[in-house]
């Protein structure tokens, strides 16, 4: 395994872990079926891109986008995170206040489709379907991004973000606030009847998830140097849901495990499939298509046979209480 491959794997794992921890807070802990999660990652990615890129007139103006502020690290990452949180405010206010949870899920799915469509078709805004390329990563002007040391540097920048998000997620999940979120997930009306404001709880965790989702997008775009609508189609959210369901809803360790097993593990496992089987050369899109079939089967299989996931939500036994 060469260092490029290892770094790619680690950064992808970091991005997926961060995204799954955020989705776990929203879906696993709080019961918000956020089918538009990938949009928040994309907003983070685009924001980080336009904050770190030069104006679109540079490089011969072959791509058009708003902004282009050439701001140094860590501003693009912070900006990406903030943009995710800011987007969560209007979306949450429209979707989470009045709608029943199943309609919330449908609305968020539709939002994901609309957002992708709009960005694809409004080219002057963020360069349409082609997306934005040549996004400079952190310190790319000081360290050559094509060297192993830059790859190592990027891993070194990603790891503290993973740890920070882990700290935030665990503090929330293990606190009385996390308990209120879980109570709301279990029985919203009963939670209201004991003084919980479900709209406030949902909005809070939706914004927190938006911030973390935005951060994951910012980290990703700095590494792969490109963001385009084709990488944030709505099924990408389904992969993250599969990860949280497989790993264990409501359990942060489960979310991490799910991130490693599903988005990272699947991608890696399919690399091991030989390009030809004997004389037979499979059609080129067979493996990606089979991945989707496998993701679908994985979700159904887990919901059917082990809905609590590999690492179920922890039962809290308090000191001095019976086991």
């Amino acid at each position, binding site marked *: 395994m060469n260092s490029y491959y290892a770094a790619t794997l680690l950064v992808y794992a970091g991005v997926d872990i961060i995204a799954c921890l955020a989705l776990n807070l929203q879906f696993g802990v709080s019961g918000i079926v956020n089918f538009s999660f990938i949009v928040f990652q994309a907003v983070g990615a685009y924001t980080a891109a336009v904050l770190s890129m030069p104006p679109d007139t540079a490089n011969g103006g072959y791509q058009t986008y708003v902004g282009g502020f050439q701001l140094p690290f860590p501003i693009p990452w912070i900006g990406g995170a903030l943009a995710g949180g800011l987007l969560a405010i209007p979306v949450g206010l429209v979707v989470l206040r009045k709608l029943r949870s199943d309609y919330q899920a449908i609305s968020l799915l539709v939002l994901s489709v609309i957002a992708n469509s709009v960005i694809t078709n409004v080219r002057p805004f963020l360069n349409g379907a082609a997306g934005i390329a040549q996004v400079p990563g952190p310190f790319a002007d000081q360290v050559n991004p094509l060297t192993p040391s830059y790859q190592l540097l990027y891993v070194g920048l990603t790891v503290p973000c993973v740890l920070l998000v882990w700290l935030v997620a665990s503090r929330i999940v293990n606190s*009385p606030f996390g308990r209120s979120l879980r109570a709301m997930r279990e*029985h919203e*009306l009963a939670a*209201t*009847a*004991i003084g919980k404001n479900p709209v406030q709880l949902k909005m809070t965790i939706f914004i927190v998830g938006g911030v973390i989702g935005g951060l994951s997008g910012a980290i990703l775009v700095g590494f792969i140097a490109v963001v385009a609508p084709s990488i944030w189609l709505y099924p990408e959210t389904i992969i993250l849901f599969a990860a949280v369901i497989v790993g264990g809803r*409501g359990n942060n360790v489960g979310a991490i495990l799910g991130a490693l097993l599903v988005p990272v593990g699947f991608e890696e496992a399919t690399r091991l499939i030989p390009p030809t089987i004997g004389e037979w050369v499979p059609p080129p899109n067979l493996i990606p298509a089979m991945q989707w079939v496998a993701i679908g089967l994985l979700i159904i299989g887990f919901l059917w046979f082990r809905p609590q996931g590999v690492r179920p939500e922890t039962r809290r036994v308090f000191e001095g209480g019976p086991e």
Partner: protein
Amino acid sequence: MSPTMTAAPDKPMLVATDIHRHFEGMRAVDGVSLEVLPGKITGLIGPNGAGKSTFLAVLAGTLPATSGTIVLEGEDISRLPAYQRARRRLVRTFQLPSEFAQLTVLENLLVAAPNNRGDSLFGALMGKRYWVGDEDRLIEEARGLLKRFGMSAKESDYAGTMSGGQKRLIEIMRALMLHPRLLLLDEPMSGVHPKIVEEIQYYLQDLRAGGLTILMVEHELHMVERLCDTVVVMAQGKVIGSGTMSSLRRQQEIVDAYLIG
């Protein structure tokens, strides 16, 4: 924890005036007025579809009233959402089990407790040291309730695994964690094993002895007779009588409408 009687004994704790709740023309609650006296158990009885549970939900704010006013100890709470009423310690239970199934029994109690510094995003992010003092105090209080209701051994079990009767008890204990001024019970005995019914009856008497005010919807008339100081009878969305159970039994209209039914 002991529920406290905060109103003067002669002044009503809660005054509901001319409450209406209509569902697309159907008058589920049709001009109900009612007073609940402090430190007493008031029963609300009536045939199925009389509007009792709807009225209770309107008082608690889980259903908005079409019109009418609700005053809790001098404060008009008619326009407040349910969670605000709960924070003013007007607390309801539900006709159907409403435990937080994937929380343990102890957590079901703790989650209801107000004034925990860790029960906000800021508090959570500050870390355990910031809120552990409140948590320890509330655990002690919740364990006191569990002991009083004979459920200490179950504190670490998921509430969803409890029997119907135990779920009722959890709900009552959960409500008590809010130190209610007025507790609204919606058929606390329904679907409960007779042995637990006796237990619940005992606990309710005990709570009344401690000064707690209760308004209770119940179908089991012997229980209502034993527990309730005043009984209000509803039929077709209206109040058709009130008084002690024995006085109600002497009113022919009420007997015809409900008591022999």
